[in-house]
C-alpha cells in the first residue's frame, strides 16, 4: 500500500470522485443568468437589443419633435374662401371695341344649341 496515495474516504469531500465540485455548483449559480455559449442565441439577443434600442430612440425622437414648436407653420385661415369662377367675367372692359364685337358674335355661336330632332314614327303601321 502506497502511503503517498491518500486514503480515499467518502467523507473527505476533496477525495470523493463522485462529489460534485462546489466551484462548478457556484459557477452554475453565478452563470445562471449568463449568456449561453450558443452563437445563434447570442445573435438573437444582440438583434433584440438593437431593436429595443431603436424603439426607445424613435419614441424619444417623436416626443421631441411633437414638443418642439414648428417654425414654418402657416396660419390657418379663419375666413371661408370661395373659389373664383374660371369663366371670364363679362365686365372685362379692357378689350378694343372692334374685337369686342367679334367676341360677342363668337360667344353667340358658342351658345347656339341646334335642337331639331327627327320625328318619332312607327315604321310598322299596317302590319
Amino acid at each position, binding site marked *: 500500500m502506497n502511503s503517498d496515495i491518500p486514503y480515499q474516504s467518502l467523507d473527505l469531500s476533496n477525495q470523493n470522485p463522485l462529489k460534485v465540485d462546489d466551484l462548478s455548483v457556484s459557477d452554475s449559480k453565478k452563470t445562471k443568468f449568463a449568456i449561453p455559449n450558443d452563437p445563434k442565441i447570442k445573435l438573437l439577443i444582440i438583434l433584440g437589443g438593437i431593436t429595443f434600442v431603436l424603439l426607445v430612440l424613435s419614441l424619444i425622437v417623436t416626443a421631441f419633435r411633437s414638443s418642439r414648436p414648428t417654425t414654418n407653420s402657416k396660419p390657418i385661415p379663419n375666413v371661408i374662401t370661395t373659389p373664383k369662377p374660371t369663366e*371670364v367675367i363679362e365686365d372685362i372692359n379692357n378689350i378694343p371695341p372692334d374685337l369686342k364685337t*367679334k367676341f360677342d358674335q363668337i360667344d353667340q355661336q358658342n351658345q347656339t344649341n341646334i335642337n331639331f330632332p327627327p320625328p318619332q314614327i312607327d315604321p310598322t303601321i299596317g302590319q
Partner: protein
Amino acid sequence: MWFLILLFLITSKPVFAQDASTSASTATASATATPAPRLFLQYQKDYLFNYDLYQQAYLKYTEKKQVYTKYGTITTQKDKFIAAIDAINARNKTLKSYLLALRVMLDDYKTTNPTETEKAQIELSKWEAWFNEQFTVVPALNNQDDLNNWITTFNINYVNVQQAIYTALVRNEVNLHQLTLNSLQQVAQDIKNNPDIKPESEQWINTLTVKSDLVSTSLGDAMSLTVKKNNQINKFDDFYSSAKISMTKANDYLREITTDLKLIVNKFYKK
C-alpha cells in the same frame, strides 16, 4: 263711286290662304330672297303641323287595330286597313316636311364647307322626292298583300332616310363649330396685328394652336362616324349620340380658346 271701287282694287293686296302642304311644295333650298333662319322657321312650323296630324291619324289607326284584334270581322279589318293608309300618308307627309326643313337648315352654315353640305342636301332632297311619289302610290294600295310589300320597301328605305337625316344633323353642327373656329383664328390674327396690343401676346396666342387642333380632331371624329359601314345595309347604326359627344368636346375647346383670347387681350391691351 266706280272710281273708288277701282282705286280699292288697285291698292289692296291679295290675301293667300295658309296651306301647309302647298307652302312646303313651293319652297326650294336655294331661296336667297328670304333670309335662311326665317325660311327654316316657316318650314319647321309646317313640319310640326304635319307631325301633329300624323299623331292624330296614328291614334285613330291604333284604335281600329285594337277593335279588329278584338272582333276580327271583315268590317273591322277594312276599317283598320283604311286607318293604316291614312296614318301612313300622314307619316310620309311628316317625314317629307322634316327633310325639307332640315335641308333648309343646312344653309345656315353652308359657307364653311359648301361641297360636303351640298352632298348632304342632295341626299335629303332625293328622299323628299321618294316620299312625294308615295303620296300617289300609297292611296292606290287596296289589299293587305300590296300593303305588306310596300311596308317592306319602306322599312328598307327608312334605314337610308335615317342615315341621311343624322348625317345632315352632324354636318350642320360641325359646320357651326368650324365657323366658330375660323372666327377665333381670325380674331387671333387681328390681335397679333393690332398695334395697341403688346407683341408679348403673340407667344401666348401661339400656344392656342394645340386646342385648335383638338377642335379639328373632334370634328373629324364626329364626321367619320357618319360613314356607313358595309355590314349595316339593312340596319340603322345609331351613331348620333357618339357624334354628339365629339361635337360637345369641340364646343368645350372652342369656349376655352375664346376665354384664353379674351384674357390675352385683357392683359396686353394698352388703353
